[in-house]
């Protein structure tokens, strides 16, 4: 149900000395035939088109069925959407049958006093506006996050309108235009009667703007309105923006989480041409944003990008997060030759599509189908390079290949291999996810008698027991994690290719701990220095477990372990540990091996790319 997130309509109501009034609604009721519909909008409203298919046999389709919520007359809308003043200045939500109205009623009485005479002196009717409400009409079963978004947009519009009302009585003036038009229409003879809203579309800038907001939201999910040529309001509906054709639903919070999970070793992939993006930016936008877009490259990690643009890393994160939110970019692992790509399950397979044409224009010597066939098996990028595509010179060829891959990634036709792996192991993966945050893991050789020594430990262990069995099975068998580990350690000499082969096979570690006998006490005393460090970060039981590992006898290893111990909580993956703690891949794997009796690695999704994954 892609179109659940597009609004059914937008309504502007006001309340004042003339009572509750509907100032504008869009799309408005088409009087006669389709040709009077403005800009063919009733056609672009996809809900209207597909209503039959989408909701077969839904008995309550009356209100929303034709997309213009016709069963509500102007008068009724005006009455139900203007709450009492006590309810103003807070989000507004009203559900009637299968439509939901959301808005943000705002009082203007306090700011429009001084304009009253000036504005209304020209017209016969004295009208004062007390409050107004920009209302979006949604489906009744809209997700709460969606409702919140629309309330936010309504609030933005309201704040801007109120400011303009304060400054120059803009809203009152527009209301006068509306009243005059309505009076004119009412005075017309019946046969030539026209929709007042159609006239308003010509006469009132505000109405045109609101209609523009509606159209923008319906088409792209973004809108941009300049109220009274002065206040810019822009808004992006993440639910819609990130939806490429029939994608899964994105929740706003999920989006924000993935934005905040951006890491220095990720790269940014712009989804639009730089030129277009550049054009789309407001004139006085952040200079840093322009700079970032200029230097952005899918081959470069964010850290390198930060140093190229002379921006601070956290600023780069904010900029990237912003672009991702607005659907202008996505986060990937830097494209490098060890990356494995495979076709996305949703690649269009028909022979002639718009994608084919676009591709052919960009790369005249290639054929999309052929390229796609190339990626039907997961192979590292460098192996594609060695064979197959054409007889190019090596350098030219690889440059071209990278361009092709970037284009495919932009169109979301490719995904990194891990995706399939993850599907295969979906069930296990879930288990792993669950386990990583438990810090206790019982090793097989330990008897239950120790558990009874420590009641607290016992509980946790018992809880985690079934999962752990699964986990050790997973770990024991030839899991992709192990494969990755091997390959990665063998090619450990390329630290600048930060990308890990897998996209979402992030490795995280759990510290496995078991209680121990008292004779460790002496060693504990002997190595107070290191242990002191451990003490700050680990629990008593954990510390004992660490010290009982043979490798802990070597001061060097223990030192490294102590240094890295904050990361062993299942919340950091290997790339991250390498980055934050500045250790080499080899060192880290060695340490993992030495302490393998208490450290486990497991796989779960990388938060930053989850959203990206869901598009595919």
């Amino acid at each position, binding site marked *: 149900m892609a179109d659940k997130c597009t609004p059914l309509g937008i309504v502007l109501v006001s309340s004042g000395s003339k009572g509750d009034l509907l100032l504008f609604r869009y799309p408005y009721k088409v009087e006669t035939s389709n040709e009077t519909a403005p800009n063919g909008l009733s056609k672009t409203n996809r809900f209207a088109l597909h209503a039959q298919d989408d909701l077969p046999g839904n008995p309550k389709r009356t209100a929303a069925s034709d997309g213009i919520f016709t069963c509500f007359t102007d008068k009724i809308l005006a009455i139900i959407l203007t709450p009492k003043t006590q309810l103003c200045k807070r989000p507004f939500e009203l559900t009637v049958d299968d439509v939901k109205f959301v808005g943000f009623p705002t009082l203007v009485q306090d700011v429009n006093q001084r304009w009253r005479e000036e504005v209304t002196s020209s017209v016969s009717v004295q009208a004062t506006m007390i409050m107004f409400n920009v209302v979006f009409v949604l489906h009744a079963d809209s997700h709460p996050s969606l409702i*919140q*978004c629309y*309330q*936010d947009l309504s*609030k*933005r519009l309201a*704040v*801007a309108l109120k*400011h303009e009302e*304060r*400054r120059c009585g803009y809203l009152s003036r527009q209301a006068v235009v509306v009243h005059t038009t309505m009076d004119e229409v009412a005075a017309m003879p019946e046969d030539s009667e026209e929709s007042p809203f159609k006239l308003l579309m010509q006469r009132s800038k505000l109405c045109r703007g609101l209609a523009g907001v509606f159209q923008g939201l319906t088409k792209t999910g*973004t809108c*941009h309105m*300049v109220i009274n*040529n*002065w*206040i*810019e309001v*822009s*808004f*992006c509906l*993440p639910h819609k923006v990130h939806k490429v054709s029939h994608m899964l639903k994105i929740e*706003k*919070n999920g*989006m*924000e989480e993935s934005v905040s999970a*951006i890491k220095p070793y990720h790269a940014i992939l712009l989804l639009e041409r730089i030129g277009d993006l550049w*054009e*789309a930016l*407001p*004139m*006085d*936008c*952040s*200079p*840093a*944003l322009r*700079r970032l877009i200029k*230097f952005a490259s899918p081959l470069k990690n964010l*850290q*390198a990008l*930060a*140093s*190229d*643009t*002379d*921006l*601070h*890393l*956290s*600023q780069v*994160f*904010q*900029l990237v*997060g*912003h672009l991702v*939110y*607005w659907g202008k970019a996505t986060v990937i692992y830097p494209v490098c030759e060890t990356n494995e790509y495979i076709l996305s399950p949703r690649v269009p397979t028909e022979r002639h599509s718009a994608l084919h044409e676009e591709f052919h224009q960009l790369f005249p010597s290639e054929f999309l189908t052929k390229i796609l066939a190339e990626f039907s098996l997961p192979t590292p990028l460098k192996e594609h390079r060695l064979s197959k595509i054409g007889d190019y010179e090596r350098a030219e060829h690889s440059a071209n290949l990278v361009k092709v891959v970037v284009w495919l990634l932009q169109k979301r036709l490719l995904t990194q291999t891990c995706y399939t792996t993850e599907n295969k192991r979906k069930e296990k993966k879930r288990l792993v996810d669950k386990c990583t945050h438990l810090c206790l893991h019982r090793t097989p050789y330990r008897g239950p008698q120790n558990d009874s020594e420590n009641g607290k430990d016992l509980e946790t262990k018992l809880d985690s027991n079934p999962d752990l069995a699964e986990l050790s099975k997973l770990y024991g068998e030839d899991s992709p994690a192990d494969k990755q580990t091997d390959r990665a350690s063998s090619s450990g000499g390329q630290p600048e290719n930060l990308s890990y082969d897998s996209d979402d096979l992030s490795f995280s570690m759990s510290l496995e701990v078991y209680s121990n006998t008292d004779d460790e006490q002496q060693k504990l005393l002997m190595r107070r220095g290191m242990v002191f460090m451990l003490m700050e970060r680990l629990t008593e039981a954990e510390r004992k477990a660490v010290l009982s590992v043979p490798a802990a006898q070597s001061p060097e290893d223990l030192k490294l372990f102590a240094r890295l111990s904050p990361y062993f909580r299942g919340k950091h993956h290997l790339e991250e540990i390498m980055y*934050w703690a*500045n250790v080499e891949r080899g060192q880290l794997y060695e340490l993992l091996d030495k302490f393998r009796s208490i450290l486990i690695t497991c796989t779960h999704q990388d938060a930053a790319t989850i959203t990206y994954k869901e598009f595919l």
Partner: protein
Amino acid sequence: MAEAADVYLLMKEEYRISRNTRAAWFFDHLNQTVTPKSDEELLQSKEELEVLSVLPVVEESSHDSDEPSQQAMRFFQAPIFPSWQEDTDIQLGKVNIMNSFTCLSNCLRGLIQPFHVPGSSCLLSPMIYITVVAYTPVSALTTQQVLVQGALITADVIDEVLEILQQEIETFENKLFNCVNETDHGGSGYFLRAQDGGLSVSQPDMALPESCFMNMLWCGILALQLLPPNTSAGIVVITDGVIGVREDPILNNALAKLRDSTIACSFIQVGHGFLPHSAFGYIPHTEIMQFIATATQGSFLDQCPEVCDDSSHDMNIYHTALLVWSFQKDINPLKGYQQSMIPSPKVSETFSSGKSIGLRMPRFPNLPLQRVKHREEALQTGLFTVMAVRLREGFTIKQVTIHKSKGVIEVRLALSCAQSGQIEYVAKSQWPPTTSRRVTHVEVVMEGTYDFIHDINCPLNKMDSRSLFKTRVIKNFWQIIRSLRDADRLLVHMHSFAANPAYYVVPEGTSKGMPLFYMPPNSDTPVLAQQHVKKDESLAQFAQFWKRIALMEPRKWQRWLHTHQIAMLLMPDLPLPKHLHHPTAAGRFVSVQCKLARKN
């Protein structure tokens, strides 16, 4: 006798007290016992700095007696005349204009409240002169941007001032609106983009955001000079944070000027911080604001809560942020100096939905910093003079350590001069200081992430592939390193003054009124004027010593010498011609010569 954690000092109103004086006090009283005076004595005192209160260390620290002096100290300035200038940056979301007014009013109301310093019973009420300037990038606007100039705000007049301000801001916005919509020639709106209007956007009459910000700072410096003499000057920029700086040299230039004139540049951010769903293209650049605030000893407030009147007269956040000059502010700008100070975040968001995402990271996130020693030498001068110069250059004191057993004092200073790198300057000297033999061992250490240090030390010709910005950063870094060395040499040179009588015995000719040097036309180098007198060894030495000082750029004098600024208005020698800005018939412009100052 307890170890002091914080010492509050009072700066008297008669003087503008330089950074050096403040630092000197610190070192004079290091490891000494200080006792605050009574309130009456305090008010009578004619001293530049008076101890207001001393707060003991709360927790018993377990330091060895070798290094007890890691104490922070805050200078306190009141009654003050900080001139204060506000910039309303209205390049976008014009709703921010009203927000910034609220912000300004909260801030001013908070500031003028009387308060007393922790540990002291003396009630202080600041005297504040303000100038408020609104700034806009739209250069076509010719209207008055100075909203209020040189107003002394007190509790009595604050309401009046704020009312005027509000009116002025509204007028300003209306004028700007008219201006913008006029220049648009009836198009579809100035801020609309090309595809909406069908016309290409009229770019030229809007300054770039980068240059805007610099203009704003210079404008602030000028406004400060026009205010009455004061003890402490500050620029407060109220902005939404959508700013940028173009080039490091330009920024450094402005920062140097700010530091030279001891102006603290503080920022108050209006609106919310970064939210991914903020309006498209507008992202506050918090880092740069924090950087500038730290570099000029200002502060950064990311919100401006309303301060209610309370009878307790504790210092509120505006007092702490804008009136207190701390000797040892955190070098690390991203550590969020202000964030810890605001206990309850009262965010007055215009658009609130969802929470702000904490994308803040530590400045050098856990990355171990590489340190490369660049230079080490022994300077024939005292530690405090070295320190004074460094403080002028913007260094902040990171750590002061006294090794009693070795009789050595070690001061670590740091200057962060790139996003991921900084210069550390370690100065060691004998302790307690002796007058006879003054040698300071200094070390210059480059500190930064591995990548940064690598870039810095990579030969320039290998940098072809680097981005322009990166190259610029690296060049700038080396420029700073070089100027450090030059400054050190000049310092030693100047401090050799007393060592040789030839340097300070004025030659015969000069004492009779002959000039020592003269500037030949079209030349930058002064030439000795008295060569013809006779071959005189002492004259040559004297000239050599003073030549370097004569060559010093005037704007750098303040860094080295005690300067006092005298403002004067010059009178043109001849009455000004009518059309000054139009060329004469011959196509030339009239030159104006002024030799005399206007009297009275």
